[in-house]
């Protein structure tokens, strides 16, 4: 049964994911972000192997992956995309090799809602709040950078540093949600609410808030349905978000 701590953490983590996703969609780095979530998988494998906390293992490979993607993003050639594709595929494969138990593999890939430790709660809540506060502080520089890196540079913004900050916050959002959604699906809670929000809104403020709201609602409704019908949490949350997306398609944009 989900404790109130689990619910608080789920709300915070989902809000952070919705906000990170809204910026990812505007930055058009959403697919690189999805790949990033898979980089946590071999880390989870290592954690199982050496009996570490999954967050330590996942965080370790995520951090490495972020540095690689940050470097690759500086190049615009196709080779960067190809390299990201290779990282994606090899991460999943490496993870599968490292994780021997089927049950552990399913948990790592699809998450779950049970047995939240106080340490996990503290990390997840702290990370989520940090993400939301940091994005709020960085928002002006991020908005100019995603509109035009050239304009940002000519306005004295260090675009390279902003990109690294953003990727680190993205990685943190993945870690904060990993517990609930698993490495395969965590990217979906970052992508789908932002996509829904873009269907429904056309001003920056409403776009950001709608993305957060859709993410939180998907998490809450999905978790509720999963517990009620004894389904897999991560999958149910993502299917709920996808249902929001389908509904959003019926709304005509101005």
């Amino acid at each position, binding site marked *: 049964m989900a404790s109130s701590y689990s619910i608080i953490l789920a709300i915070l983590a989902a809000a952070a994911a919705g906000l990170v996703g809204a910026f990812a969609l505007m930055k058009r780095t959403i697919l690189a972000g999805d790949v990033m979530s898979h980089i946590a998988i071999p880390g989870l494998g290592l954690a199982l192997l050496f009996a570490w906390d999954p967050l330590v293992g996942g965080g370790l490979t995520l951090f490495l992956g972020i540095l690689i993607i940050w470097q690759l993003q500086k190049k615009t050639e196709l080779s960067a995309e190809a390299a990201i594709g290779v990282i994606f595929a090899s991460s999943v494969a490496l993870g599968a090799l490292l994780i021997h138990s089927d049950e552990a593999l399913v948990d790592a890939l699809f998450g779950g809602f049970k047995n939240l430790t106080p340490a996990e709660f503290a990390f997840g809540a702290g990370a989520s709040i940090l993400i939301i506060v940091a994005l709020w502080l960085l928002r*002006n520089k991020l*908005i*100019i950078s*995603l509109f035009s890196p050239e304009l940002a*540079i*000519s306005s004295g913004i260090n675009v390279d540093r902003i990109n690294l900050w953003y990727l680190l916050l993205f990685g943190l959002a993945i870690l904060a949600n990993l517990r609930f959604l698993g490495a395969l699906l965590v990217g979906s809670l970052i992508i789908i609410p932002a996509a829904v929000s873009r269907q429904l*809104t056309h001003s920056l403020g409403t776009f950001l808030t709608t993305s957060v709201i859709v993410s939180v609602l998907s998490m809450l409704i999905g978790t509720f349905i999963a517990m009620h019908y004894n389904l897999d949490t991560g999958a149910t949350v993502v299917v709920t978000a996808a249902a929001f997306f389908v509904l959003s398609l019926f709304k005509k944009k101005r």
Partner: protein
Amino acid sequence: MQPALTVLNIEVSFDGKNVLEDVSMELGAGESLAVIGPNGAGKTVFLRALLGMIPYRGTITWAPKTRIGYVPQKIDADRHLPVNFKNLFAAKASILKLPAADIEEVIEIVGLNNNIITTSVGHLSGGEFQRGLIAFALLGKPSVLIFDEPTASIDVAGEEQIYDLIHRLQDAQGITTIVVSHDLSFVYQYATKVLCLNRAGVCFGEPDIALTPEALEKLYGPHKYFHYFNDSHSDDHRTKNHDIQQ
């Protein structure tokens, strides 16, 4: 008096190949420089070097306390980006800690209104978008404005307005302007100095003196420059009505 900008023998290469070499020039404060040359001549590369965005050899010296405003040729942003110029102005003003009155001022200078600046950038006409970019560049009271083909994506009527605006900024506000242009009539009408580029610096000086038939021939090839002069808009109509690409 110290020049606003001094460029000495700059050279830029990508992958070991020179795309710009042997360019030198000097520009006084309040002057208007036109940079001309055929496609692929390194005009944008030259601007990027001036802005410090790319590595180069040689020296580029701006006068102390120079503040640069930059208006790029096109913005490769998402057409459905839920961002409007009001957001962008507010973001820049907040970073530079400017009062709200500064935003009002630049909006008025370029002739925008609240309706336009609250429309998503993807839904603006080429001219509106361009004026938005100019207002963005003007925020923070730059002493130098750099334009990369400011009329590349707007119609002929809009072109006049933009050129008038640039001229007004130079005249009334004493801003030093650097404009990449295809339009030789603009060069003769408004520029106090012209720099001809064709990978190398071909000519530099006052337009009437520097733009000799030999220089133009060297720039555009034999007899081609008449075509350029009479039909200077032909090249500018590629991306009509919109600066933003999908």
